[in-house]
């Protein structure tokens, strides 16, 4: 894995959430989703900065749209995962599964 292909934990989380949220992925929805799914308070700025960083790395792309009254008539910046982003997520998931396979089998059910 090259340097640009490495993702931090938070970056991976955001990338995954963008994938999950689909057409509704922008700053606020992501912050809300993190709170909902992970029970974790994240500042808007952290989400934004990570989004821009991922965009710069080519895993996300953004487009403007959806101005609503609630936000003072301002446009939203929606994010969409790119193919490279999807591939990376897949790759990370696979490598983790492979790693898990190597661990001693534990029986959680009993």
């Amino acid at each position, binding site marked *: 894995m090259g340097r640009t292909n490495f993702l931090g934990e938070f970056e991976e989380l955001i990338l995954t959430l963008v994938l999950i949220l689909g057409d509704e992925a922008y700053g606020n929805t992501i912050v809300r989703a993190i709170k909902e799914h992970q029970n974790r308070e994240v500042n808007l700025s952290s989400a934004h900065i990570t989004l821009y960083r991922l965009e710069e790395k080519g895993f996300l792309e953004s487009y403007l749209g959806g101005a609503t009254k609630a936000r003072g008539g301002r*446009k939203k910046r929606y994010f969409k995962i790119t193919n490279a982003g999807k591939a990376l997520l897949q790759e990370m998931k696979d490598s983790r599964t492979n790693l898990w396979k190597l661990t001693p089998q534990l029986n959680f059910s009993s």
Partner: protein
Amino acid sequence: MSPKRPPRLFVNFFKWYCKPSLQETILGDMEEQFDEDLEQYGASKAKRRFGWTVLRFFRKDIIRSLFNGQKLNYLGMFKHNLLITYRGFKRHKSTFLINLIGLSTGLACVLFIYLWVTDEIRKDKFHEDNSHIYQVYSNHHDASGTFTWKGVPGLLADEIKAKVSEVKHVVAATDAHEYTLSTDNDAYKVNGKFANEYFFDVFSFPITHGDAKNALVDPSSIVITESLAERLFSTSDAVGKTLEFHFWQFKKTLTVTAVIEDLTTATSDQFDFIMSWTYYHEVLVSYKQWGNYYARVIVELNDPSNKKQAEQKIDAIFKENLEGTRTDLFLTNYSDQYLFNKYENGEQTGGRIEYVKLFSAVALFILIIACINFINLSTAKASQKTKEIGVKKSLGASRNSLVAQYFTETTCLSLLGLFVAYALVYLLLPQFNYLSEKELSLNIDGNMIFSSLVIILIVGIIAGSYPSFYLSGMNILKSLKPSLSIASRHSWGRRALVIVQFSISIVLIVATILIQQQMRYVQTKNLGYDRDNIVYFEREGKLLENHDAFISELQDLSGVEKTAASGFMVGGGNSTGGVSWEGKTEEEQVQFWETKAGYGLIDLLGIELVEGRAFDPSFGTDSTSIIFNETAIAAMGMEDPIGKTIHHYSGDKKIIGVVKDFNLISLHTKVEPALFLFNPEQTHFIMVKIESGKELETIEKMESLYDEFNTNYPFNPRFVDQDYQALYSSEERVASLSGYFAGLAIMISCLGLFGLASFTTERRTKEIGIRKVMGSGVWNIVLLLTKDFTKMVGIAIVIGIPLSYYLGAKWLENYAYSIALEWWLFIGAGIIALLIAWITVGTQTIKAATVNPVESLKDE
């Protein structure tokens, strides 16, 4: 602001720092979140969270780059600005030169004064223990007031050493004086002093050969400077060599114990050798008592904060030993003596520090004048650039780039001015040193560079701020439309600056004339004694025993008018309080200047007798005779003094005469009591009055006669009038220096006026052309153009004259005898200023008025 909106402050802050491309969406997100928070937590928490988020967004990826986000070619723009600046200088050569000359001469003056002032301030401060070194002074109170000087009884030194625990070292010393030193080969007149063995513990004069510790213990020891060693022995390592000391009837063989480095100008105490205090005290001082103030005592304290205690103890010791004295002793920091050397009635009243202040003020004035000029001319020139600005703006130049251009221009010029100023100082420093009798060098240190850069940048920025901010903010249409309104609306600022300049110039003109006049007055003032064509030289060797024979042979030389044995010294020699008379009370302590005299001295000096007679061999012996001046008689409150007997410390004396007052000390003080004591054997000099016009040949003849009599002693005659001039040498130097500086300041003001005049006439060429076509004469136009400047100078005169009157009156208070402040002096200064202004402006206006209207009305 509704409570439902996010805090405006943070919104604005965010808008200010955020990249424009990100601004809208982020702000939208934040506002959306704010609304949610508002519902969930209430207004105050929502606001707090909003603010926090804004602060959290303040990071690298979000903040806009410094310059509008557009990447301009800054280096390219800078190069372009430099090029424009260069072309501007080339096109307006005369303005450029006037500006540069004005600024750089002004700065050079300021630099010179800075060097001079720092040299004065640093005087005597190089001694390592400087802050611990104190000189003992004495305040003598008598009926006429308090007299302060650094003479103290020599016996004091040992007592202080024994009894005052605050004191680390005590130095007993004398002032430097000229003595004769001889080796086997030759004899020399050398300046030297006496000091005890602690001298080198207290003062940091670097030793090159020998041991400083015990250098002055032995009575026959002498410490000499390197250059004196070279002169006497042709080697700098002179330790162990012997030489002979001659003073009056004393003679002593001495051994060199140490050699010190030549003294620099950093010390005010100049000498070429030091001899042992023991020898001086044991042998040379004949009257060793507590009432005789023959020594200088310097103490080094363990801790300067104990100064008060040490002072009290020293004064107490003195009073214990001299009961009923009306003299107090006090301490003054050794290095302060140089700058604060004037005392009036026991109070410290300035001294050289006044010249330091005067010159600092002059430097400030010149700096202000030069800067005003620079600012004035730059703004005047810039207002011609409205068209250029209009064109540039319509082509899309941003305001910032215009501001940058003007700042580049003015800072370039001011930096160039600074550079030229340094070059000027470097080149002219030898001349300045000659004029100021100093040995200054241009040691460029970080401090100096830093402060001059700061000053020059401030000047550059002020000068550049008018064109850059006012003109660049101007409406394009207005700047392209031909109109005259801009210049006239903003010229009041420039006028005020010209008025300030000329007021300062007038003050400087008055100051210069005043100082010169007072100096001339000092030079020519009748002091009550003659000082022309009178020379004197020391009695040494054979002259001590048979001076009578020598005097009578001198008298026979052609060209010699009068001769006498003399103890007369310009500036006062010995002062004594040891005189008492009938009816003298405790309070009537009077300090007299004492002059020992031989026959004919009073006549030789041209001092007039009021009553009685002078010392005269035809009246038998005069050995118990004394003569007072009128002030002395008045101070003693005597009526009919002739024939009365008074008690002098050397015995009872009869008053045989009263002479008219003569000013022995200096014109700074009133005439003080003085007495002449008949005692030719004890006199130190032989004085000769030479026929005027025959000085040189007569002195040659005197020299050959002297050599016959006194083969081994150098003949070194001195002129009384030179001694007198030396009393005022520091004033003389200041007078000549201030003259130069005033001249330069006026020149700089004129350059400014010249520039301004050429600028206004240039602007009014068309107007002048039209006026001429309509039939106006040349003189009408000249008058029209000059009127404005005359008004300004007129106002400057009104401001300058009272100011200069006040300052002049204050300065003359320093003299007990001074010129009166005449009205014509001030009117004269005003007229000079007006004439200078007219001549400066006239050259420009006449040129403009005589131009053929065809030329001026024709458009490009």
